């Protein structure tokens, strides 16, 4: 049985076959950012609160990567999705997902790579 670890702790919560990123929302101006910030990046108010972001959005842009990079053997797809909270999130795109700007997509949990016996878990973009 493989062990699992998050590629970075504190960034997301897995809910079944969905994943919710944990951003932060300003208690004064309402600006939402991801990754979460310690103070508001927009108005500089000192109090922000954690906010679980929507997991569905629209595919904003994409590319197919053909060069080798650590943990991601080519070819693989990358893209960014626009979330209703007013921000974009970047991630790899699940194989088989249609590459089309404007496609309704969602964030899903995924094993991104393995380190020895450990599955390193994160998120990627998939069709809804």
């Amino acid at each position, binding site marked *: 049985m493989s062990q699992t670890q998050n590629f970075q702790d504190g*960034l997301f919560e897995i809910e079944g076959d969905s994943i919710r990123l944990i951003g932060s929302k300003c208690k004064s101006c309402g600006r939402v950012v991801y990754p979460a910030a310690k103070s508001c990046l927009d108005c500089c108010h000192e109090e922000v609160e954690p906010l679980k972001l929507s997991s569905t959005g629209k595919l904003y842009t*994409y*590319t197919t990567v053909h060069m080798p990079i650590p943990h991601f053997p080519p070819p693989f797809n990358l893209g960014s999705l626009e979330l209703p909270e007013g921000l974009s999130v970047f991630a790899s795109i699940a194989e088989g997902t249609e590459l089309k700007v404007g496609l309704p997509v969602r964030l899903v949990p995924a094993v991104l790579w393995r380190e020895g016996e450990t599955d390193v878990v994160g998120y990627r973009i998939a069709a809804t």
Partner: protein
Amino acid sequence: MREVAIIGFGQTVFGKFPERSISDLGAEAVRAALKDAGVPPKEIQAAYASRLFVDLITGQTILRDVGITDIEVTNVENACAGGGTAVRGLWKDIAAGYCDIGIAVGVESMTTSPIAGKLIPPAKDDVDGMLGMTQPAVFAMHARRLMETRGATREDFAQVAVKSHHAASLNPYAQHGKEVTVEQVLGSRMVCDPITVFQCCPNTDGAAAVIMCSMDVARRYTTQPVRVRASVLLSADYNFKKTEMATFEVQRKAAAKAYEMAGLGPQDLNVVEVHDAFAPEELMHYEDLGLCKPGEMISLLRSGATSLGGRVPVNPSGGLQSLGHPLSASGVRNVGEIVQHLRGRAGKRQVAGAKVGLAQMLGGNAIGLETGACSIHIMSV
């Protein structure tokens, strides 16, 4: 604030020279610039040096080899915009009267750097970087937005590379001085779709330097001083403030400031040099710098206006793509390129009758930010 002049330029041939040290490359550019200006080394009062992947006190070690010591030296970094930052720093010092004459030098030895043959790594805690983000991927995603919003085609992107290689074939300093065709560009290895390897800047070693001074001092050395009409350096804002990826907001703001400082507009430009590390991005700069109306970058390219012989040639040097891109040198090199055209000394690639030119440089990437920095210099004779 005094008017600042540029009276000398020097650069090394760009290419892969792992056997050459940073001080060797930098000193060659400095000597060439001093000779070009006719300025004795001991006259230099201040220096700004830019470098990224290099050891400490770079400026001092370069100037040591030319017999220049005992002056104020500042070493700066702003990713690919480091060279533009060095020019900006020296401009401010001269304009404000802190010194009368100085040198701005940019240098990079990519082949002996920790990232030789590799990509610029993101910061260790950069979440996007951990998930596979790289510079070519970023620009490929920009390119996809150009296809989506501007009707850009793969052939358009390839045409930028063809234009770049053609210009470089006329530049004796170029790393990639061979002409290419659209078919060859499209048929070359795919890096990040739609960007093929012939649309990417290479790993380059090189240096460039400019001599800048007050207008009073300039008149002692030349009857043809190049006037710096604008100098702007601006860092980018958050991505969440943008609605469209197919533009660089920082560049638009920097350009507006620069045109205001210079008292002229984009229609007055005869020659332009921009950051073209990847072919598609050059098209974004056409709109952001106001060389054409919003939405018209493709028409401008296809009209031939930005090719040599056109109304406003962009990157007549061959740019980062084909002349080469020693990161921190490029921002000095492209200011110097404009200077050459304005003085009628650009050889076979000379833009005829050039009187006003603009040099732009962009640099840096980090999660959450549009980009790092943008520098813009406008010059005229």
